[in-house]
């Protein structure tokens, strides 16, 4: 049963845009707790994944290691196709001082050597946080190197998200929890929550930024919602659906708005719906200048 806000997972009833989702991804309960509290997230029972949410945010707790993080990320992105971005937050080892927050500018999978470069948000969004290379290890290590921080999940999350999201929609914020002066052996698990709590302002700022970007591109969602409404009444093949959404976009481009449902009386075929739409589009010739 889904205990989350009804609106979040229920079918779309109209073509009014609903809020886009950003999913925070953590490995450990002590990291998750920070965002469950700060964003007032509720548990969601969803195919056994540890998932929490509210109307605009999800939190996925993957467990330790890149295999678990990849499997959980891939499954949740597949189930929730309205996730617009993911932010991996957690602790990392490195040469910076304990508590230093870092944004990943490159994520390297130690096993394969494969590197990913996220397209970074503007500095103002992340309070000019310093950036670093995050190397995802298979086993914990205290082989600290300048310019590189270690974690155990990021590369799994990035590779699992790549079929679903663009390079600007997957970010990684880490806090240094161990370094050569305080190596991993001395690390106390109890400190995790306090360290990750320091990232709340920057994570909130990223969440706000993604929400604003989603609003700017909301027309795409409006078109898809209207297309869904229309195709639920008349059979459409995949190709018919593509042609329909192209025509809806053209109508919007030329008239500045989507057609009213009432202007498209029920039809028996996808082709006759397109004929109706083309007639509406022809009422708005393409013009440039004052008279357009």
């Amino acid at each position, binding site marked *: 049963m889904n205990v989350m806000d009804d609106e979040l997972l229920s079918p779309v009833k109209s073509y009014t845009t609903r809020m886009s989702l950003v999913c925070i991804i953590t490995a450990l309960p002590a990291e998750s707790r920070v965002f469950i509290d700060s964003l007032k997230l509720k548990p969601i029972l969803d195919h056994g994944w540890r998932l929490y949410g509210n109307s605009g945010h999800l939190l996925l707790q993957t467990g330790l290691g890149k295999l678990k993080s990849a499997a959980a990320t891939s499954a949740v992105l597949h189930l929730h196709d309205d996730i617009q971005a993911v932010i991996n937050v957690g602790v990392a080892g490195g040469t910076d001082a304990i508590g230093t927050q870092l944004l990943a*500018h490159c994520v390297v999978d130690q096993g394969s050597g494969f590197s990913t470069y996220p397209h970074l948000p503007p500095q103002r969004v992340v309070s000019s946080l310093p950036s670093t290379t995050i190397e995802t290890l298979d086993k914990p290590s205290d082989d600290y190197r300048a310019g590189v921080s270690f974690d155990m999940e990021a590369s799994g999350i990035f590779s699992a998200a790549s079929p679903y999201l663009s390079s600007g929609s997957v970010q990684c914020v880490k806090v240094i929890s161990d370094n050569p002066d305080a190596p991993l052996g001395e690390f106390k698990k109890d400190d995790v929550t306090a360290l990750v709590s320091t990232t709340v302002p920057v994570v909130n700022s990223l969440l706000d930024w993604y929400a604003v970007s989603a609003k700017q591109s909301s027309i795409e969602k409006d078109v898809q919602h209207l297309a869904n409404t229309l195709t639920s009444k008349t059979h459409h093949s995949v190709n018919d659906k593509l042609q329909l959404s192209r025509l809806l976009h053209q109508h*919007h481009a030329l008239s500045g708005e989507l057609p009213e449902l009432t202007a498209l009386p029920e039809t028996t075929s996808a082709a006759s719906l397109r004929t109706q739409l083309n007639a509406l589009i022809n009422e708005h010739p393409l013009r440039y200048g004052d008279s357009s």
Partner: protein
Amino acid sequence: MDTIYIEKEVAAHPRTLRICERYPRARQIPINRYSDVFNSRTQNFREQKANPSLILAKKPGKLIQATPPGYHVGGENNYYFSHMLNCVYDCRYCFLQGMYQSANYVVFINNEDFFDEITRTANQHRSASWFFSGYDCDSLALDPVTHFVDDCLNHFEKTPNAFLELRTKSTQIRPLTNRSPLHNVVVAYSLSPAAIVAAEEHGTPSLEKRLDALKTLQDNGWQIGLRFDPLLYAENFEDLYHQFFDQVFESLDMGAVHSVSLGVFRLPKGFHKKLVRLYPDSKLLAAPMDLRDGLMTYPQSEELSMRKFCTDKLFTAINKNQFFPCS
């Protein structure tokens, strides 16, 4: 500029250091090859256009390419080169959106390698060769950062058998007006009616400002070219372009214009498909279009009538030997 990726090989180059000095607060991220960032497959051009990064790199391999057939202004040997990839402007019809995954700007800092190859290529021919800059970018728009134009003009000054076209929409003409004109350099402006500039050429200087820059260049003795490409379909096409050409003719000494070219909107099918995916609400993509010879363009009858209207109008102000229509 928030983020600068720097190839390790050019990190200590004086041009790299000068460009980085301009952006002291930018993140500097070392990389091995520019293609590691620029060609990565999961990028979204439209998303990056809102916040592009700069990539400083050394251009490897062949630096000068032969132009496609029909791309010339009267010369026999025609080549193009790109000292940078991508553009600070955001024209909705731009083919770069279809060509590249990334909207980040790549600036190649090995200028001397370009110039050596230009000289070598020019020396292979008995007749003069033309080199077109601004094929994969705007030639002048980022010049306050790259300072490429100054170096380039210094080189062409010493290479009289090579001609240079700087193609632009930018009004950053100081590197030109600061020096004496060169006989073998043409500054060519892409021009469109003001209403099309406002609707489809985001972030570019207005038509008026471009005409002012052209006039200044003409007054300073530089050879100028006019590129009416792409012509865009509109129901009010004739009104728009009639007024537009009158404005151009009134602003410039048309008899002294080096060359004029003209072409309608056309894009390879794959690029067009990508553009529709990136900007499904673009007005220009709502025009009637056909696929002809692998290119998405206007129906032939429409194209012919647009071309005829503009050619007739142009020939009221220029001679046939100034005219080089694009195929």
